[in-house]
């Protein structure tokens, strides 16, 4: 009997403003520890530069955001079963390990929840603002196995990227910047017969760019969040997609996360 290989895959591209490699290293280390599988980090050479403006607590910042190429994950993964995670997704539990060995070919999130309770992702429920009935998918965390069905989804993802302007008009979203979430949403919908199926059974836990991690200890995050003009803190335990990446690269916080496992 051949044992199926399983592992975590992280893709990153170099950016002048942010050390994505350092983020990938720490995200891989945590994933390996909590999911008890190996992790592979692959550097992507972007075929096209992409930029995105992030709104932080202290203003706006436009940074190079080379996210193109995620559709190559199927070919790049050295594993039979892969968990593809973003470099700013920090695993803190074995929840995702449940999906290894499951009956599914491709699973991703269909909703994201703001752990600070400000519901910043409420406009991201559908592909079009206001809702056109096409549910969003999130490319932050994807489970897939080497199968014909998964391969078709990745091929469709690539095809949507190639024809992104056309699909933006068809589904009613702005064509720039390119968003993997949108491309995956369309590919996933097409390959699943436009049925809202095979998504994770819980929402993607995320912290928006306007909130930040201020401390970490033993799987517990201390989060500073904004509400209107006031700040407050909350403690959170569990996996987390930290969109305010700069904070995680702060030496003190980075060391705490690195040395926690």
């Amino acid at each position: 009997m051949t044992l199926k290989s399983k592992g975590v895959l992280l893709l990153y591209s170099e950016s002048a403003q942010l050390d994505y490699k350092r983020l990938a290293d720490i995200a891989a280390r945590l994933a390996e520890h909590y999911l008890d599988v190996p992790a592979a980090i692959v550097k992507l050479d972007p075929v096209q530069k992409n930029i995105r403006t992030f709104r932080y607590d202290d203003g706006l910042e436009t940074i190079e955001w080379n996210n193109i190429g995620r559709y190559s994950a199927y070919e790049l993964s050295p594993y039979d079963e892969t968990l593809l995670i973003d470099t700013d997704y920090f695993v803190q539990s074995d929840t995702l390990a449940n999906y290894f060995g499951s009956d599914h070919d491709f699973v991703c999130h269909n909703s994201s929840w703001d752990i600070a309770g400000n519901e910043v992702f409420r406009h991201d429920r559908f592909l079009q603002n206001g809702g056109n009935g096409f549910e969003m998918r999130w490319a932050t965390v994807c489970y897939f196995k080497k199968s014909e069905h998964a391969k078709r989804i990745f091929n469709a993802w690539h095809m949507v990227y190639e024809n992104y302007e056309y699909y933006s008009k068809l589904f009613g979203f702005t064509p720039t910047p390119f968003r993997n979430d949108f491309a995956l949403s369309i590919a996933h919908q097409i390959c699943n017969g436009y049925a809202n199926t095979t998504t994770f059974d819980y929402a993607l836990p995320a912290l928006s760019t306007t909130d930040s991690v201020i401390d970490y200890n033993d799987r517990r995050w201390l989060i500073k969040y904004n509400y209107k003009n006031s700040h407050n803190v909350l403690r959170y335990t569990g996996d987390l997609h930290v969109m305010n990446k700069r904070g995680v690269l702060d030496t003190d916080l980075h060391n705490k996360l690195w040395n926690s496992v």
Partner: protein
Amino acid sequence: MTGPSGPVILSSMENLESYARERFELARQKQTLKEQQQQRLTVTYNGGLFRVDMTLLNYLYMKNVNAGLFQQSTECIMPDSYDTPIEINCEELLKLCDARWNEVHNDWHNEYQLLKTKRKAGDVEV
């Protein structure tokens, strides 16, 4: 402000405002705690993924009680969270679900006790 209860009313209004803010934040953090714990309530069994909730636990308990009382089978087919029919042994799945349920709810309870007592931002630590 005039009237015998003037200053008292003002003070109560201020208290009420800060009390309302506190309750608002508590409700928000309680919701976060609920979401963070509930995402752990999934178990894998025989290739299927099952969301552990009270309905599933009740069903499994009932099947096991019936097996003991009326010699009914503990084997059955049940759809998982993704509507895939999975062959299960109720005794095995119950053990798994019960363990996960207790683990999550104990953590939830402990975290909630901390949340209730640490109300000021400066008191919250990790």
